[in-house]
């Protein structure tokens, strides 16, 4: 009995070797690939589409889909840090492209340079130049962006605007011209939600106030937060806040969007995941049911944020990861993922026919606009700064003191190695 079992095991092992052996010699991959992300809920199907594509191309690789739920990766990032500190990195992990990755993982010498992959795959030409600059440093390029979201968008319902006899504002002065009128009618001019959406609004307002060149200078330390320009941005932000709802901090971003949809508020500045929310959950048609424009004063500028995957040093299955990253950056991969996720592809040559109307317009802008990075979503500043900035924002929301906020922001910039 025992003998037969042993014999069967030996035979099976031999068969496995026969199957695997030739496969390897043909250049196919085997083993495991563990992908760590926070895409569990609505984004799950989009990630699954990518995994399906990968499994079709590399049938011998077992893909382990490790997700930790929680919006913006609040929980996932903490789990990832414990795993990395414990010397057990996943093969590849999701991270916001830019300084959130660079400040935490690249500076700690935990990531491999991906320039070789970008050159090999021809991504230097396929991605816009400004993008590659923002996700890399002098020493290399550190992650492959899977999607692009836009931060500086103002949302509204066209029918409601007609009713009130107003238009989407092109500048904040336009907004201040109509806002008091709307406020008198009992409608909140600009819907706002909890703390992070205030950061989100701040970056659109600051970009409008500073202009793209000064915005970039802020993050290279060439312009101080407590300079006259920096303080002016806070002053403008304070003025904008006067036209927001005062129960903001107990609302989620969806509830702020709901206020616009229900006609309780006129406008809302939110990233373009709001388009997905309004078209999928609220069943509104892009263009007629809900409308959008670049946030006031930021026309011709595209403030982006991106989810990306990188290659940690010491990844157990490096070859599998490289194949995974190649898929993420490919036209096929990004056009399978993004229509489902509600974002646009980072490539300038994607197949627009599979995207909805909002995404088509965003893609067109992405190809021609000036690209700048988002603060609230990790492109321009490291995690230390982002965390401290949240407390500066809380301070400002309470005190409304532009000068003090500028000073505090400069202090945390110095502390976190951004300011000089």
């Amino acid at each position, binding site marked *: 009995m025992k003998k037969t079992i042993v014999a069967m095991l030996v035979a099976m092992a031999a068969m496995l070797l026969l199957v695997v052996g030739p496969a390897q010699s043909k250049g196919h991959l085997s083993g495991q690939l563990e992908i760590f992300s926070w895409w569990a809920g609505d984004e799950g199907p989009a990630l699954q589409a990518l995994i399906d594509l990968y499994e079709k191309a590399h049938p011998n690789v077992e893909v382990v889909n490790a997700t930790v739920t929680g919006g913006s990766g609040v929980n996932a990032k903490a789990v990832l840090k414990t795993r990395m500190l414990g010397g057990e990195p996943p093969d590849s992990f999701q991270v916001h492209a830019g300084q959130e990755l660079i400040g935490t993982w690249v500076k700690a*010498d935990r990531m491999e340079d991906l320039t070789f992959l970008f050159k090999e795959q021809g991504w230097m030409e396929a991605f816009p130049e400004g993008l590659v600059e923002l996700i890399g440093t002098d020493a290399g390029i550190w992650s492959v962006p899977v999607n692009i979201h836009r931060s500086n968008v103002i949302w509204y319902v066209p029918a409601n605007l007609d009713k009130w006899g107003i238009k989407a504002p092109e500048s904040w002065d336009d907004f201040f011209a109509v806002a008091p009128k709307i406020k008198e009618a009992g409608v909140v001019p600009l819907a706002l939600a909890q703390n992070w959406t205030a950061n989100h609004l701040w970056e659109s307002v600051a970009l409008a106030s500073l202009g793209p060149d000064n915005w970039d200078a802020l993050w290279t330390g060439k312009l101080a937060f407590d300079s006259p320009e920096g303080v002016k941005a806070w002053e403008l932000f304070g003025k904008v806040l006067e036209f927001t709802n005062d*129960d903001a901090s107990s609302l989620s971003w969806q509830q702020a969007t709901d206020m616009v949809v229900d006609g309780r508020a006129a406008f809302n500045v939110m990233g373009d995941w709001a388009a997905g929310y309004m078209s999928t959950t609220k069943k509104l048609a892009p263009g007629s049911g809900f409308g959008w424009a670049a946030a006031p004063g930021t026309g011709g500028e595209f403030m982006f944020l991106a989810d990306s995957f990188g290659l940690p040093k010491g990844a157990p299955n490096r070859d599998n990861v490289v194949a995974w990253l190649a898929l993420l950056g490919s036209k096929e991969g990004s056009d399978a993922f993004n229509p489902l996720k509600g974002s646009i592809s980072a490539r300038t040559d994607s197949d627009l026919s599979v995207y909805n109307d909002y995404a088509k317009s965003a893609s067109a802008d992405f190809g021609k606009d000036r690209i700048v990075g988002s603060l609230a979503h990790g492109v321009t500043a490291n*995690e230390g700064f982002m965390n401290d900035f949240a407390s500066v924002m809380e301070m400002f929301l309470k005190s409304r003191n532009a000068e003090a906020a500028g000073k505090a922001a400069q202090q945390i910039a110095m502390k976190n190695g951004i300011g000089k």
Partner: protein
Amino acid sequence: MPNRDRIKAFLTLLPSMILIGVFVYGFIGNTFWLSLTDWGGVAALAENPVRNYAGLTNYKELFTGFLGGGFRQDLVNAVYYSVMLLAGAIGTGLIIAILLDNKPRGEAVFRTIFLYPMSLSFIVTGTIWRWLLAPQGGVNILPTYAGLKPLEFKWLSSTGAIFEFNWQNLLLIGLYIVAAVLIVAGLMAIKQDPPRALKRFLLPGIAIGLATWLFGDLLPKALFMEETHGFNLATIGIIMATIWQYSGYTMALYLAGFTGISQDLRDASMLDGATTAQYYRYIALPMLKPITISAVIILSHISLKMFDLIFAMTGPDNAETGHPALNMYLTTFRANDFAKGAAIAIILFLIAATFIIPYLISSYRQRSTR
């Protein structure tokens, strides 16, 4: 052979002593060491991060630094939160326990109903109460059912604060509190032992109070700028939710105590002409002092490490309802400032110790005198 017994006892205890030594005290020690370093910032997560000894910089930064304002507000919040929770949960629990102790009809049903919130996790409680306390729903629209106007209070996002004080005057306020505590203790002890109460409590208390009042201006300022902190009204919502969850628990504690008191005692007191109120005030409650003490200990350390309820109700970055435990998590795992996170953890640990160590000492003494 008592000696052999001792060895056996020691050997039996050894494994747990080692495990607790390593995993509790060892890690407390390690956290304390980390709080004295500068581990954080850029490259904090490198394979072999650089950690330099930095002395008490982190603590100094938290209590007197420009950027520590958030932490200071959190600490003040935690103090108010603990006090309100203790008063609320013990008071409510006691009242319910007394009502149930008088055996109303359906006592068992009520007991289950009141104890039920205990079985929920804080995340569930937090989510339920976040909905109940939403600005345009739940509690705020209750009056509309009676034809009244809805409430306008923003339970979780109000920016109002009461009992405000300036952090600069921290030393001053601390001394006043010490003086007040001494005087109250002295007044309470004066009946039993007048000379001792006078010498030990009253006179030093009055002296400290007077000295502070006269020379308080000479005290060094705790901070270089004015910074007011107070009891944020937005924490009322969180306190309500916690009381809702824990008053059933204190009720159960007291109820168990009340049923443990012999019926003869109650009958005897009634025969002597005591009213029900007098029975509870002078006989039942003094007998349940150990229960009150353990309720205080349990609730105070729960309030000091409160995290999940606040996270579920108001999320991170809500300065109005912040708590040091939340701040510690964000500082450590979001900002990668491990040393400062460790410092916050140690501060919380020390505050908890001030509650628990006196309790341990007194119970140890009681046991050894017995």
